[in-house]
């Protein structure tokens, strides 16, 4: 371990409130690992943090090309950060394709740290620069502060006696960059050194080389004079004391399912089929056998949900996770779950569609499918998570609603939340809401017959689990006789059951919290109404708009079906309601339909999340129109 404090010579250290950094390189350059390590280091130091990886859908897209660029963006700061940053302040470009693909999102005056060996003739050609043009040399980057550094050469020199092959040596380049960034942001390297020692425990030479590369990068910052102009930066940590962990949205969903099972006293069963960007939920739960979690990697999406319905019939907290194409395949089974009135959590991690669409890119375009995408009259609750950490609370709430209201619940996340991460102040078990299953107790022979579709005052039927004496009953997709539960084709009964099923979902509004205002005045010019992953961008934009003196508020929906009871009243308090969505306008239809108002839509369908600048610009335009 080295004491980085004393080895650094005195250079000017500038304090900043918040910084956005992009690590970009070829998909084989290890940018995800580098970014993750940097994020861990700032998180453990106590910074506010938000991260977002951005990688191609191919495992190994052609090296050196724009298609092969893999990025990891993060924003960290002394004040709360809700997005990875609309623009970055610093960009690491491991090759010319990485620079070309991302330059448009670098702040004017931002810093570029370029690995010059990625800017040789071959790389420039692969990135699509004209013959003889090198952006590092032609003056085209004069609006930025550019640091061309021969990373490969410096890494090779440092590791020439490491005993590794030249290929293995070159794979340490990313650790050089990481060390340099640690120096630039006045951060300790110890955490990364420990990680490398653990990760390469069985390959001590590799561990040693990587650690040396980190240190070489760090000392390079010290020794070189190129940074003297800008000096170093410090972002003082601000987090309140407590126990934290960094979670991605997908991890948070998985933890929530397991936690809801523990809290409700049920066993968790997840039937699932791998699909980007939802797979990590299955992967995370597959590792939770210590908590008794049962995961089943089914042969297809349909078997994923149907096995879960079987497990739910057996008395488990059953869940399935998927993304758009998978949800489409599950819709027939969702109808069965609606008919059987059994608890089931369906997590849909939305991605760009239709069809295979943009598998690795986020979109919010499955809202209609979540709301209406079933045959027959088949209403079910729909709720949406707004941040990686909120994926925990929303999924937990989905499980609570499913179990306590005996219904399948659609829980929406998206590719942005799924892979983004932020620090989470670890929950303690006592703070989690109680979840009480409606388990029907055994029946004695002298008791009246068990009526599977007899309901309580919330129209919820009881859960009679096989193995319970005297409750033997048959469920299924055929319409059932009210209360009795036998097959019925009676016209009036079908209409009654259809009404009851709808009423049951509508009555959930009695048990969910009222809608709150996230920010801004209770009455005013403009309400920005969001749902899902646009939370961070809207939050940041509305904050800035309020600072400018605009009369703007922000409400963010978790509950989309049913809506919170007071939502209509809130909407009526503003001259104008604006609804930003990563789709072609879906929530706006539902709001218009339900409340007969005319909101302003703001669509973005680029496979990219909103950034705060876009939302702020839209708010500014609307406020000007209203004045």
């Amino acid at each position, binding site marked *: 371990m080295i004491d980085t404090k004393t080895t650094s010579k005195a250079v000017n250290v500038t304090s900043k409130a918040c910084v956005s950094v992009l690590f970009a390189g070829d998909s084989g350059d290890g940018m995800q690992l580098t970014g993750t390590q940097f994020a861990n280091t700032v998180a453990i130091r106590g910074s506010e943090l938000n991260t977002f990886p951005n990688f191609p859908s191919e495992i190994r897209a052609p090296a050196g090309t724009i298609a092969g660029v893999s990025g990891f963006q993060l924003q960290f700061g002394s004040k709360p950060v809700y997005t990875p940053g609309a623009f970055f302040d610093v960009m690491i470009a491991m090759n010319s394709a990485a620079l070309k693909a991302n330059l448009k999102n670098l702040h004017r005056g931002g810093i570029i740290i370029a690995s010059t060996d990625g800017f040789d003739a071959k790389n420039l050609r692969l990135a699509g620069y004209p013959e003889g043009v090198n952006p590092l040399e032609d003056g085209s980057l004069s609006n930025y502060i550019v640091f061309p550094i021969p990373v490969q050469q410096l890494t090779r020199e440092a590791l020439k006696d490491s005993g590794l092959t030249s290929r293995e040596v070159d794979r340490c380049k990313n650790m050089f960059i990481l060390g340099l960034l640690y120096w630039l942001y006045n951060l300790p390297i110890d955490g990364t050194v420990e990680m490398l020692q653990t990760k390469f425990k069985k390959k001590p030479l590799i561990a040693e080389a990587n650690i040396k590369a980190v240190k070489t990068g760090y000392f390079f910052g010290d020794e070189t004079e190129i940074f003297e102009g800008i000096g170093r930066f410090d972002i003082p940590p601000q987090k309140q004391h407590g126990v934290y962990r960094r979670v991605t949205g997908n991890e948070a969903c998985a933890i929530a399912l397991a936690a809801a099972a523990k809290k409700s006293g049920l066993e968790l069963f997840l039937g699932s089929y791998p699909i980007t960007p939802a797979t990590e939920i299955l992967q995370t739960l597959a590792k939770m056998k210590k908590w008794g979690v049962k995961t089943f990697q*089914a042969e297809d999406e349909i078997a994923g949900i149907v096995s879960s*319905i079987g497990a739910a019939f057996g008395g*488990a907290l059953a869940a399935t996770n998927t993304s758009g194409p998978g949800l489409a395949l599950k819709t027939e089974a969702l109808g069965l779950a609606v008919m059987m009135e059994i608890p089931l959590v369906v997590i849909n991690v939305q991605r760009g569609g239709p069809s295979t669409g943009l598998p690795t890119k986020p979109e919010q375009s499955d809202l209609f499918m979540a709301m209406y995408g079933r045959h027959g009259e088949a209403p079910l609750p729909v709720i949406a998570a707004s941040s990686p950490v909120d994926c925990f609370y929303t999924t937990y709430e989905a499980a609570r609603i499913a179990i306590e209201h005996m219904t399948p619940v659609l829980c929406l996340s998206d590719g942005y939340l799924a892979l983004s991460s932020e620090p989470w102040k670890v929950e303690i078990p006592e703070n989690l809401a109680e979840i009480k299953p409606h388990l029907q107790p055994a029946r004695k022979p002298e008791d009246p017959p068990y009526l599977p579709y007899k309901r309580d005052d919330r129209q919820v039927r009881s859960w009679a689990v*096989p193995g319970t004496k005297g409750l033997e*009953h048959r469920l299924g997709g055929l319409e059932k006789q009210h209360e009795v539960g036998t097959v019925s084709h009676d016209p009036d009964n079908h209409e009654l059951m259809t009404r009851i099923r709808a009423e049951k979902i509508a009555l959930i509004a009695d048990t969910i919290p009222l809608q709150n205002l996230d920010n801004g005045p209770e009455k005013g010019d403009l309400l920005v109404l969001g749902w899902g992953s646009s939370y961070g961008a809207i939050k940041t934009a509305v904050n800035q708009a309020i600072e400018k003196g605009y009369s703007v508020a922000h409400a963010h929906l978790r509950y989309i079906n049913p809506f919170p009871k007071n939502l209509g009243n809130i909407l009526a308090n503003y001259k104008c309601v604006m609804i930003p969505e990563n789709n072609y306008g879906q929530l706006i239809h539902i709001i218009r339909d339900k409340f007969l108002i005319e909101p302003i839509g703001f669509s973005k369908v680029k496979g990219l999340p909103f950034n705060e600048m876009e939302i702020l610009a839209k708010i500014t335009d609307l406020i000007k129109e209203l004045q």
Partner: protein
Amino acid sequence: MTDNNIKVKPALIAQDFASNQEPKWCPGCGDHAVLQQIKNTLPELGVAPENIVFISGIGCSSRLPYYMATYGVHGIHGRALPMATGLKIARPDLSVWVATGDGDALSIGGNHFIHTLRRNPDLNVILFNNEIYGLTKGQYSPTSKLGQRTVTSPSGVIDYPFNPASLAIGSGGSFFARAFDRDGKFLRSILLRAALHKGTSLVEIYQNCPIFNNDAFDAIANPGNKAENTIYLEQDKPLVFGKDNNKGIRLDGFKPVVVELNKENVSADDLWIHNEEDINKASILARFADTQFDSDEFLPRPIGVLYAENRITYEDALTEQISDAQKNKAGTLAELLKGDNAYIIQ
């Protein structure tokens, strides 16, 4: 016995497993007979009705759960097997049965069929094979015969049919048996065998549909030809058949040939001895069903247990992994929430 330890006293009878719903199958449908034999078999297992679940898909035979006084789910078309698998994984203590048909299991549910068999959860799967779609009124199924004329094959079926036995064995199934719907007592013995087998037991029942495919199995099953055209398998016994038990099957290398006993100096000692644990022999036996009834190549249809293999069930393997992970102690909710990488900000 099954893995269920809950015994019922006094002993139950078939009627205890009948629900209050009248079966709505057509008069003369083979499903009635199968239902009766299931009800006759269950008391022999000593499992209480509340610990038994019947799962089905869609089709005539998939109505069966409604007629049982056990727990049950009449699910969606083709998906009975994944539903039963999920249930069995969640509740290994239950005795889980599946009623499915040739359309349900082999057409729309074909993918689930092969994957369930290879995973081997402890299910008792009854495949009602009537070689036709009954509920939708007479379209051909994946087991309909080549050339068969139906409403969707007016010029004759050109789909080469599935051989369920070969498909099951090829998919890694651990148990395959075959029986006729009308073979009451024998069917019951096969259902009992299936129930006692630990793993996915597949019982193919040749079931007559008197409305849309009447006498589909008549060529081999009518009382006049049955002895000549079927062979009832018995473990460790030679493959003998025929009206006078005067024919047998001998293996000529890998090729099964019909021989007449007491002729050509052939005796029972020269015949193929049935061994249901031998997958190679089971694979050859499964192929008997591919021979055409009216050709010289015809081999009698094997009835009984073609294949039975002891192999760990899916749910037992998973339970083992979970017990192993909880060897020291099960995880607590607090540990779950905290995870492995928590850090403290002072």
